[in-house]
Structure formats: C-alpha cells, structure tokens
C-alpha cells in the first residue's frame, strides 16, 4: 500500500492508497458469466508508537484501490507509523512509513 504522512502545525496528516480489487461478490465475469467471488479489505489500521490512531472497517461498497485520508495529534517528524490491512479471504498486508 502507498502511504504518506506529513507533520505540520502539531498535526500529522496521513494519506493511504491500498491497491486492492475490492470485489463485491456481485459482479460476474463478462466472458464466462460466472460470479467473481467477493474479495475486499475489511479492516485497515494505523498505529503510532504502540497506540492505534485510526481503524477503518470497510464493506464491499468501498471503491477499488481504497483511498483514505485522516489526521491525528501527537506525532513527530521521524516517527514510524505502522499500517496493516486484512481482507475477507485472510490476506494481510503491512507497511511502515516515517512521518516527514
């Protein structure tokens, strides 16, 4: 996933883009006509020094490649943020980023 975190005026602003098909389970393959099984991110979290600063829970009607922006107080330039998502099939992805 692509992440950026910037510190300005006491606030850390975070942007996340997680490449993911976000299949709803309602779409059918245009060639075979078979339903494409659901595959979508259910939970995405952001941790700063052991404290969870943001948790997003998604349903299947989030857009493909989910995008998020949020901000929190208490970060510092150089601190590490840890991101993690898991989807309904059990796949997990983790990314770390440093606050700039």
């Amino acid at each position, binding site marked *: 996933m692509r992440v950026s975190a910037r510190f300005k005026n006491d*606030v850390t602003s975070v942007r996340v883009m997680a490449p993911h098909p976000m299949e*709803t389970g*309602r*779409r*059918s393959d*245009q060639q075979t006509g078979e339903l494409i099984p659901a595959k979508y991110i*259910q*939970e995405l979290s952001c941790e700063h020094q052991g*404290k*969870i*600063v*943001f*948790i*997003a*829970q*998604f*349903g*299947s*009607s*989030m*857009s*493909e490649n*989910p*995008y*998020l*922006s*949020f*901000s*929190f*107080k*208490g970060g510092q330039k150089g601190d590490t943020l840890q991101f993690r998502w898991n989807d309904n099939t059990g796949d997990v992805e983790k990314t770390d980023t440093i606050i700039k």
Partner: protein
Amino acid sequence: MSISRRQFIRLFSLGSTAFISLLNPVSAWATWAHRAFNADELETAYQNLLGSSTLTPSNDVILKLPKIAENGAAVPISVKTDLTGVESISIFVKDNPLPLTASFQIPSGTMAKVSTRIRLAQTCTVTAVVKVGDKLYSQSQEVSVTHGGCGA
C-alpha cells in the same frame, strides 16, 4: 485424588468463565462488524453497528460529496465535525445492496475528519453518522448517479 462435587462445580465455572472471556473480543472494534456490514436494510445496519437507529440530524456534521456523480464506482466523500468526544464516523448508502460502506474509529487525539471514495449503485441518499457518547448525529445528502458502480 478425589474432588468433591462442590470443588468440581467451582473449577468448572472458573474454567468456563475464562473460556468465554477468551471468546469475547476485548473491544467490539477488534473484529470486523460483520452483522452490520452484512445487513441489507438501512435500519438493521444502524442497529447492528451503533446499537440504535435513532439519529439526530445535525448541521455540526459536515458531509461533502458531489451532487452529481458521473461514475458511481469512485465517488469522493469527506466527513468532518467540530463536535468533541467523537468515537466513530460511519458512512451508509441507503440504496446500495449492503448499506454500511465504511466505519472509522476515532480514538482521542485523532481528528474527526476523514476522506475516502465509495461506490454508489444508483442515485441514492448517503448518510454520515457521528457517534458521540450514546448520541448519534447525522447528515444526509442525495447524489445523482449517471453510471452505477456496483454492476458488471
């Protein structure tokens, strides 16, 4: 070694309490809210996620999204509020097959402001719900959708 009936009951109840507390997540947020996300009725989704479907419409909840969306597959949306003590922000789409789209936990220190992109199946009403204590504040807006975002 023999165990009296009383001791057995005591041991058993201790053991089962420990087992049940393991089953229950520490926080309701620790697991995906499947009952709310799988609800196909708006009211049921409110009830299952937030424990109530009584919403107080409020201008303190600022919902930003286009009035007309050409492409329902990715509609930008942002929700913010100046209310204090916000616990969560949730987005519901009345006419989507499954209304609950996203729910964001806002721990203390995190701003009550979030932006994302959602799918809209058809022209519909989008509702943002902000939870403050046991109060639910909401703001709704209708969006006209030219091309639905959930079909094939």
